[in-house]
């Protein structure tokens, strides 16, 4: 206040302004609010999944006698039971469990990268970022295999009403059950995969910056922390996607 000659000071409480009331920089707050917003996007998709599934009949017979049919929603263990190199062996959910493990492991290495950033240990940040990128890329590779297998289908396929057999799935037909099952699978895991892919790109960018010493010169590794928030969020979303598509 230029006009006042007073020595009175304004209030200085947590929410009285002139500070960061949530003890977070604006960049970190923005990331949090973006993630909140993104959570609603995924939330909408998962609700679409739930309602679409609710509209279809469940399979009521014996699990051993299960066959693929457009009449009912398939049992996930019967759809996702393949493993690369083990052709014809029934390994329910083994591969997706491995994928999930890899993604969760990448979250652990991300935490270690952030922690190394707090210590201003450039070498450790580089190391753990590289591991995170590696695990992220492996997850994407696994998803590509999973998709390829889902699209190709198995030898039995599904017998249609007109006597033909269809094999595999795409956006309009599906050997494993109602077409909507495949639509939702492609759409939601694809949307999540896009997020993982963006995450890997972001990680590569901050990895290059770290190697060039950008953050070291800046005096803090907050950017690693922000990308870390995003990465953990993407992992968390996978847990929900996994639960919806594979477990229930």
């Amino acid at each position, binding site marked *: 206040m230029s006009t006042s000659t007073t020595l009175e000071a304004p209030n200085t409480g947590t*929410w009285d302004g002139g500070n960061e009331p949530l003890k977070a920089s604006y960049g970190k707050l923005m990331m949090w609010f973006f993630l*909140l917003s993104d959570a609603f*996007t995924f939330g909408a998709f998962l609700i679409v999944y739930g309602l679409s599934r609710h509209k279809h009949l469940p399979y009521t017979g014996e699990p051993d006698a299960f066959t693929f049919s457009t009449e009912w929603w398939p049992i996930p263990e019967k759809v996702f039971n393949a493993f690369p190199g083990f052709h014809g062996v029934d390994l329910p959910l083994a591969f997706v469990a491995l994928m999930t493990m890899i993604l969760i492991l990448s979250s652990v290495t991300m935490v270690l990268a952030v922690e190394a950033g707090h210590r201003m240990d450039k070498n450790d940040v580089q190391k753990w970022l590289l591991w995170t990128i590696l695990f992220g890329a492996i997850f994407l590779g696994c998803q590509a295999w999973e998709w390829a297998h889902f699209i190709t289908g198995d030898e039995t396929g599904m017998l249609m009403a007109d006597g033909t057999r269809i094999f595999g799935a795409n956006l309009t037909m599906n050997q494993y059950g109602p077409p909507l099952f495949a639509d939702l699978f492609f759409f939601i895991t694809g949307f999540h995969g896009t997020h993982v892919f963006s995450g890997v790109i972001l990680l590569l960018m901050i990895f290059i910056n770290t190697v060039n010493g950008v953050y070291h010169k800046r005096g803090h590794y907050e950017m690693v922390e922000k990308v870390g928030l995003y990465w953990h969020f993407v992992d968390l979303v996978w847990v929900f996607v996994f639960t919806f598509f594979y477990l229930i």
Partner: protein
Amino acid sequence: MSSTDISINKDVHHAHEEHDHHHDQNFFEKYIFSQDHKVIGKQFLFMGIFWAFIGGFLSILFRLQLGWPDATFTFLEPILGGWVANGKIDPEFYLAMVTMHGTIMVFFVLTAGLSGTFSNFLIPLQIGARDMASGFMNMLSFWFFFLASIVMFISLFLETGPAGGGWTIYPPLSALPQAIKGSAGGMTMWLVSMALFIVSQLLGGVNYITTVINLRTKGMSMTKLPLTIWAFFLTAILGLLSFPVLFSAALLLIFDRSFGTSFYLSDIYIGGEALAHTGGSPILFQHLFWFLGHPEVYIVILPTFGIVSEVIATNARKPIFGYRAMIGSLLGISLLSFVVWAHHMFVTGMNPFLGSVFMFLTLIIAVPSAVKVFNWLATLWRGNIRFTTAMLFAVAFVSLFISGGLTGIILGNSSLDIQLHDTYFVIAHFHLVMGAAAFFGMFTGVYHWFPKMFGRMLDEKLGAVHFWMTFVSVYLVFMPMHYLGIAGFPRRYYSWSTFEAFNVFADMNSFISIAAIMGFSAQFIFLFNFIYSIFRGRRASANPWHSNTLEWTTPPLPGHGNWPGEIPAVYRWPYDYSKPGSVEDYIPQTVPFSQTQSSNLPNERDQE
């Protein structure tokens, strides 16, 4: 409560910071790709005005059709080309026009044009910040909006026309390009444009929220914020949580349209031929859409609540009545806006019990809304009212909000809605309560903050003419629509003269159209006043309205960084108008209590 050393240190620090802000900018940095919140706010305002005239013009075109359904409009052929054959407007183009009118007005004018302008312009100025948290993202926000605008604008000139399935783009109509022309290329461009628009909203929204949380000046606690900031803050949160759901809905619709999926489609025959889609549900889209759609109407109206509260208190020269109740009701409305969406879907065949739940929740909104109205009226009560143009619009806003709000209570009843759904009663309701009211709030803001935006005053006489013509024609347009609606007159009908029951309303429809044309013409008075005053208006002083909030402590035309010296600190709430014992009838927020001992209240004495 005083300390010498602290303030001296701060002075030195801020003097340094100020130096960094003065670097020469070229034309592009300054006016086109600007990262200054004030320039970005003005960019949103100009785009908003541009779109408002297009949206208004479309409404005049379809009002011509509705007012004189059997007339021939050969004079429209030079403008509309192939869309007018033998003087008759193409029915599918009529649908496209109402769709685009709704889309443009709701999203491009009253969301981007309103929040974009005033959140950008006022948040840093009123909380005492140099700029938004991230100027770069703020700039991106405008340019994404600009891209969305270009795509939407181009879609107006497609041979198959712009989107035509209504602004709510319900599938299956919008999902099947073979259904109507309006579901072809125009619909694709609508979806692309809206996806870009949502990105713009997201970038703007996170910026507004973080700026309000982190960049308030010293002393500006949440309960010393002007109500405008509270309104913008909550609007941004609503947008942040509801737009992503529209994004999801739009993405799924894009897949249904272009990639053969069946999310919203099932058991459809076109031309006697069955489509392959199976298993989807069109009602699902309505749920997703209205989960955005209902908060969206509050995204449109909340900012104007803030603007009107501010302008009414300033021009009634009285503190706002029930400041905390105003914040509470804003919070209440924001919260409730997420749990009432299905009142748009009472007649879709949903469970009547669910209908009564949503009816109950909907009617609760009347409570916080009524709190706001009572507080505005109580603020006006026995005030020293100055009828500036902004004040005229603000008072008229309250009037429109009451008129439109009362019919909301009627429409919120799930049983009454069976009769009134998709009639002109609904049109009248939402045009009064969120269309015209939000426009009046926007005019209030433009007339009130024009001096700070452009350093000059708008002409008050032209403003008064603009106000009275607009105000009268808004009521002349929408009041008769209630009667049409109760009589069952359906919305979105191109031609009604073949229905015996509706022929008696021919004169009333012509009357409405004449009033609409009058209202639209009045906006050119505003346009002239606006453009003329930017260059030739009377120069404004720093605080022409004798207002308390921080933006009026800046120079008449604030430069980059807003305050030439240190950012002022804040000591009091923004509504100390006509305080007993005070010399002036206003005490700006920057004046400490120690300087106003004659007017301090007992509980303020210990802060002296």
